[in-house]
């Protein structure tokens, strides 16, 4: 490590930045000082300036992304306006969001060597550093692999190793887990935690899912609209009302505790309590409260759809290669009006199964009937009149010059009339009216996602399928999109979506289907399906599991449900 940097390893003073071609500033008067060895979480909604701030720390702003720059950034004693990005790269390691686009070599070893070659280290030193980096990140077994043989989580760990080899003092990670499944995310975060704990590297991490990292970090900085609005220890910041106002997802256990504190006398909680950051702490702090809530007759609200079956999947087997089946005998019936979450790890077969519903995949064995059409006989275009499909990456949808044309495109190619009216209606529904004449690709991620959904909703398909519609979105956008979907199915239509996000599945929809290795392992009403599972239970449910012996209903999935139960319990039990 370069030892010349002491305390105040990262300093920004009155930092302002406006991207060229933009009217609104991305950063407004940002002043922070980060000490060596700190683990800092940068939180806030999408578009709040987190990524821009991160890019200021290694000089990509203003050297790579031009614009109006004001104030000062000093990292390890270097003023970023004077130092080049290449110089700063020796002090600041940067890991990007997209695992694919930051690996430039055809072999992991060469990937790690890339930065070291750039700074002109001799061969034997490079060899030593490669070993060291591979070992530290725990990927020695991947050394000869091509990036296409790696999973998302592995790619991110390779990216970490490749910047670690440069011996940085500071590691900046811009949403490194947002494209990974829960297991991949955990693997990456474990490595980051270890680098901070054992090597003392300063870490600045951007992450939407606070529940994953809250207990690891020393400090949380919250941004909104380019400004810093809160900065402090995690427990302190969690109690800050301004955090909630930004629409950030508060970890459910924290949320529950805060709401209990708000509604009841503090004596219902354990003496000398603090805000719990993990399930373990939550159990400790909330135990006295739940002990009093014994045996309430609470039942979760469930919807049982009795409409006709619109999707019928019968014993489907499928594989791209003969001897490697991806789906191994999947059977599933979905009724009209249902709202189904399809959960499972990466490569468990979720997307492969969804593609069967519109004929992009044809079963090798078994059959799929959608709205009375057998997918082996109907064409994709015929099925597309009944089934709308929103893919993972909205960029793959966008082809037109304006949002209006984008939404009108499928209507035209399917030969609908009164296009103008239909587009207007759907733009209104998704609050996109003011972007009507904008170039879709210039919009933010969340807006693009809405345009993609709008272009599918425009022809009002009977069945709506979404492949990970909430991936990479911040909390308020996630909630907004899920509410739109819920409204859509209430019109007698069917919605199926895949997700990694158990919390979202717990809050919305009414049925949970969990896949593992090409098979459906759980298919039930969500309260039955998601309760008492280890990996696929939401946080509140994992905490409640230890309160079962007090008679607390085991089907509680969300904060709201937990509050209902507490309310009934306390009112009946008295104080």
């Amino acid at each position, binding site marked *: 490590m370069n030892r010349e940097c002491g305390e105040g390893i990262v300093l920004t003073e009155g930092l302002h930045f406006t991207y060229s071609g933009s009217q609104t500033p991305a950063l407004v008067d940002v002043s922070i000082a980060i000490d060596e060895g700190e683990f800092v979480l940068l939180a806030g909604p999408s578009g709040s300036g987190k990524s821009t701030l991160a890019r200021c720390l*290694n000089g*990509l702003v203003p*050297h*790579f992304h031009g614009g109006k720059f004001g104030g000062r950034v000093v990292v390890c004693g270097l003023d970023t306006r004077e130092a*080049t*990005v*290449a110089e700063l*790269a*020796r002090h600041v390691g*940067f890991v*990007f969001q*997209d695992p*694919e*686009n*930051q*690996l*430039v*070599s*055809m*072999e992991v*070893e*060469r990937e790690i*060597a*890339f*930065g*070291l*070659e*750039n*700074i*002109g*280290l001799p*061969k034997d030193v*490079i*060899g030593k550093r*490669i070993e060291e980096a591979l070992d530290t990140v725990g990927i020695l077994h991947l050394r*000869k692999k091509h990036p*296409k043989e790696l999973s998302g989580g592995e790619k991110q760990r390779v990216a970490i190793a*490749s*910047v670690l080899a*440069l011996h940085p003092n500071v590691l900046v990670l811009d949403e490194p887990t947002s494209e990974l499944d829960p297991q991949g995310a955990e693997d990456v975060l474990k490595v980051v935690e270890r680098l901070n704990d054992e090597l003392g590297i300063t870490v600045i991490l951007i992450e939407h899912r606070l529940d994953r990292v809250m207990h690891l970090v020393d400090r949380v900085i919250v941004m909104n609209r380019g400004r810093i609005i809160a900065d402090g220890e995690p427990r302190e910041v969690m109690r800050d009302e301004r955090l909630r106002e930004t629409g950030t997802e508060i970890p459910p256990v924290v949320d529950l505790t805060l709401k209990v504190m708000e509604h009841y006398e503090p004596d219902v909680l354990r003496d000398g309590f603090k805000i719990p950051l993990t399930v373990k702490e939550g159990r400790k702090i909330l135990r006295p409260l739940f002990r009093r809530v014994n045996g309430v007759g609470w039942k979760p609200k469930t919807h049982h759809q009795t409409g006709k079956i619109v999707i019928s999947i019968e014993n489907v087997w499928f594989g791209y290669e003969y001897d490697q089946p991806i789906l191994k005998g999947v059977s599933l019936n979905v009724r009209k009006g249902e709202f189904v979450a399809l959960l499972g790890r990466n490569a468990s077969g979720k997307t492969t199964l969804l593609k069967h519903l519109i004929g*992009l995949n044809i079963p090798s064995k078994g059959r799929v009937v959608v709205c009375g059409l057998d997918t082996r006989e109907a064409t*994709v*275009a015929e099925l*597309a*009149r009944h089934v*709308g*499909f929103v*893919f993972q*990456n909205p*960029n*793959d*949808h*966008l*082809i037109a010059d304006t949002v209006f044309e984008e939404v009108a495109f*499928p209507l035209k*190619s*399917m030969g609908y009339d009164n296009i103008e009216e239909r587009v207007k209606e759907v733009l209104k529904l998704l609050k996109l009216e003011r972007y009507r004449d904008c170039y879709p*690709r210039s919009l933010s991620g969340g807006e693009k996602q809405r345009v993609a959904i709008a*272009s*599918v909703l425009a022809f009002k398909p009977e069945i709506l399928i979404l492949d990970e519609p909430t991936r990479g979105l911040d909390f308020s956008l996630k909630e907004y999109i899920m509410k739109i979907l819920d409204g859509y199915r209430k019109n007698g239509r069917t919605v199926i979506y895949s997700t990694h996000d158990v919390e979202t599945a717990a809050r919305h929809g009414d049925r949970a289907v969990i896949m593992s290795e090409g098979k459906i392992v759980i298919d039930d009403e969500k309260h039955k399906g998601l309760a008492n599972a280890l990996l696929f239970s939401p946080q509140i449910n994992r905490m409640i599991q230890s309160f079962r012996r007090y008679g607390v209903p085991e089907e509680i999935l969300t904060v709201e449900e937990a509050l209902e139960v507490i309310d009934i319990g306390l009112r009946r039990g008295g104080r």
Partner: protein
Amino acid sequence: MVYKEANTPIHRMNAMPKIIWAITILILSLIFDNPVVLILLFVATIPPAVFGKIIKEWSFFVKFGLFFIPVIVLLNIAFNHNGEHILYSLGYDLPFFGSPVITLEALFYGIMMGVRLLVILSAFAIITVSVHPDDILMLMLKMKVPYKSVLIVSLSSRFIPTLLSDVETITDVQRTRGLELDRGSIIKRIKNRFPVLVPLLANSLERSVEIAEAMEARAFGENKKRTFYKELKLSNADKLVSVFIFSTLLVGIIARFLGYGIYEYYPVLSPIELESIILGVLLFSMLVIPYVSVWITYNSSEPLAHGGHQ
């Protein structure tokens, strides 16, 4: 059908002689149209495929070539009416084609051109499957090609799989939006591809910006002289083998200038001469000897565990 790491004498052999070998075969197959030479050149590409245990991947390329032979033969007999042995004659005139006749000579010539295609595909199949792409890049660097050009080649091959999966996904997306790719006239079909092309180009542009960002964040563009962790090492044996293979090319070129191995297809197939058989066998053995010798050395020594390059 890409490179796969394996511990065989062929995989472990240095990239330089292998690439010179493939180029030699390419040139020889283009300067000779003698059937004996062409067939023997094809046979010469089989031993490395066998020793390298890559028959499965190799045959994928060869099958691809076999698929094209009938096309080449058909085109040749349709447009080439030279030759005296008429196998079939239509007997009346057609617009554009005149009075079509199929001759034995044109048929045979078509088949031999198919064999020539097979020779080239087969030689390059062995390179594709047994040479690590990085080795090719390192060879380029060794030949003093500027680093930035090598990097561009390297980045393009790195992102080909990504691009292909992009094409697949975007095609799927646009099909679910009611796009029918294979419908209508040819012009309509080409127009139908636009909804796939537009997002593909836009995605690639956005990707290239992200790649550039990631590279700069790892000190790319630093003025200092760049070092290279891995370089293609050439032992004296490698150089000797390279020179030997290169001399095969010289032998071939000289023989061609002296008029050996020339073959006439028209107006009647000329007889196969002894000289051309000798030439073919000579070239064949010179092309096979390096592989046979590494294979023998490999089997007589203790198999080592390390990989094929560096």
